[in-house]
């Protein structure tokens, strides 16, 4: 039993953090709010070149062949930076599902380009809403008990605005066919659901941490009544509670990532616990960081809103806390 990340895992996360500091500062995230794609110019390529995009693809398909435990720290960093690229949908969900449950033709067609970042994938495992669908080359979609891999030119998209305008959601009209059908069985689909939950939970933890960092800095600087706002015990306790929520969501996320990769028996329960705790943590972080800022944060001009809105979106995406608590309850037999 050793809960520490390996040096390789830690180093990779540091590398991603450095890339995002350069290529995904708040001003760049704002370009993704306003442009046609919801993405930052060049960032996808950089992430592909670094190995982030292809991290989960099989090694014989130009990938790094890694698992969820290798992704969690990266996902945290993507959340911390409010990175708008569809790494979650592509790397954490679509690629592993194709690797595991794609037909031979689908694997041959998509895995190598996806690993290299030349093809971009998005997916839904049951939700009405697909993020970044219009920018993807193909979509992994669900039809009842089946999964399908559908080129984007074979679907009709209706844009659905998110509170977070970098999230280019759409509802998708499409026809399942023998050609699009994947071999993924129920177990593979369930594993994909868990992967999505853990990756989303890790992003929530990163977003929550950034909201906390942002707010700690603000309340140290902002003065009212002759003192920094942060001297008030109410502010201290709000932020201590945010810190606590993050502090206890994080190891649960790591455990869930490890359990998925290791195929441990608690993988389902742990991934739902992780998303429930992480959704709640980011929800609390949103509310408390806004409250501790006051009116300044209630505008689109102030950068906090980029994380607030990402936070609200990711708290809901891939299952709300309520949904995942329900799954935990089922696994407990209640």
């Amino acid at each position, binding site marked *: 039993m050793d809960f520490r990340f390996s040096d390789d895992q830690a180093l990779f996360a540091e590398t991603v953090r450095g890339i995002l500091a350069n290529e995904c500062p708040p001003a760049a995230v704002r370009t993704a709010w306003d442009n046609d794609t919801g993405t930052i110019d060049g960032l996808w390529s950089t992430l592909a070149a670094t190995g982030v995009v292809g991290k989960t693809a099989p090694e014989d398909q130009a990938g790094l062949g890694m698992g969820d435990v290798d992704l969690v720290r990266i996902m945290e960093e993507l959340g911390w930076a409010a990175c708008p690229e569809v790494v979650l949908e592509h790397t954490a969900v679509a690629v592993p599902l194709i690797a595991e449950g794609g037909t031979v033709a689908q694997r041959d067609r998509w895995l190598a380009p996806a690993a290299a970042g030349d093809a971009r994938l998005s997916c839904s495992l049951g*939700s*009405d*809403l697909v993020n970044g669908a219009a920018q993807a080359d193909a979509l992994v979609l669900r039809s009842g008990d089946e999964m399908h891999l559908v080129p984007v030119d074979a679907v009709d998209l*209706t*844009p*659905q*605005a*998110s*509170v*977070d305008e970098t*999230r280019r*959601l759409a*509802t998708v009209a499409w026809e399942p066919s023998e050609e699009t059908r994947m071999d993924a069985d129920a177990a593979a689909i369930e594993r994909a659901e868990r992967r999505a939950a853990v990756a989303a939970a890790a992003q929530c933890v990163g977003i929550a941490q950034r909201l906390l960092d942002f707010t700690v800095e603000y309340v140290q600087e902002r*003065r*009212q*009544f002759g003192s920094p706002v942060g001297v*008030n015990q*109410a*502010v201290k306790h709000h932020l201590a509670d945010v810190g606590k929520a993050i502090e206890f969501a994080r190891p649960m996320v790591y455990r869930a990532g490890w359990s998925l990769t290791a195929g441990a028996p608690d993988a389902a329960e742990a991934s739902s616990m992780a998303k429930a705790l992480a959704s709640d943590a980011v*929800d609390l972080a949103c*509310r408390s960081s*806004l*409250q501790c800022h*006051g*009116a*300044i944060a*209630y*505008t*689109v*001009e102030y950068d906090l*809103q980029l994380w*607030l809105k990402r936070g*609200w*979106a990711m708290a*809901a*995406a*891939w*299952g*709300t*806390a*309520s*949904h995942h*608590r*329900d799954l935990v*309850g089922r696994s407990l037999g209640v």
Partner: protein
Amino acid sequence: MDLTFSATELAFRDEIRTWLRDNTQGEDWAPMDTEEGFEQHRGWERTLFDAGWSVPNWPAAYGGRECSLIEWLVYEEEYYLGGAPGRVNTNGITLLGPTLFSFGTQEQQDRFFPKMASGEEIWAQGWSEPDSGSDLASLKTTAVRDGDHFVVNGQKTWCSRGAWADWIFCIVRTDPDSERHRGLSYLLVPADAPGLTRRPVSRLDGEPAFAELFFDDCRVAADNLLGEEGQGWGVAMATASSERGLNLRAPGRFLAAATRLVALYRSVLDAGTVPDNGLREQVIDAYTDATAYRWQVYRKASELMHGGSMGSEASYMKVFWSELDVELHATALRLLGERGELSHHAPLADGGSWMTGYLFSLSGPIYAGTNEIQRNIIAERVLGLPRK
């Protein structure tokens, strides 16, 4: 104790209910804080005014029908349950209005009230400054007397509805050597005053609902001073604790929202998408709290109508309704699951977005004195805990 509505109160309820039913059909309402929506809502103020429903609790001379406080609460309940649009001149009618009744000269009242009631003049509040939020008494905008005018210099911010309002009620420092609560005055400023520049600022929902105001040797007639020069803090505090002010916010809005929440829960339950945990309790709690708020308000109104007063206890009200509103909308988002993130622009959101309501609700615990400050007031002034 007699909680039966009287025949008069019931007749009043019927009258407003019928009028609303007949006058709120079919129109699509643009968001109030867009240029188009602002003017559309101004028109609705006029419609209300013409029917005598803009300011029902005001004197007849200013377009009211002198209804009782209880009747005003009935009016508000009907207004929100009827789904009538938001009131673009709320800042004027409910914040400035009571203050103007208490401190305004006859001339000021005659000058401002009719146009406030009809929507011809929409008001915004200019109190906060970049360095003066919770700590309002630290404000720096100055107004120096120059003959029959004041010359105003400084900057105001978070001025709700300030982008298109016609008038702004401000607190300014008329004694430049004064500190804190002393030397402040309450000044009514026309939005077209020379030397006043406005910059719209987009709220969290993207609508330009705020403005920043820049005063650069802006000249304002001295007639527009409300109350005595140098007594602005007292005038402002009277606004904040007025029995008809923000703190006695009518329960109608929350009852209507709680009713919508119950309907949402039922529809989600029917669709089979709601997990069997916590959410039912949260829906019940929201409805229960809205009901408790309702009776609390009627109780306070009864006391106020019979000589009672509400001082610092108003802080209980503000904390309660603002947190109820946040919880209620947060529950709705949980019920919506993955659709909860949709903005009102999304076709699936069906034109009305709980997320937009949630964003709006989140301003409640911040404005008009943060809930942290309200809880300090409760502890120190209601319960008697030591300040230091």
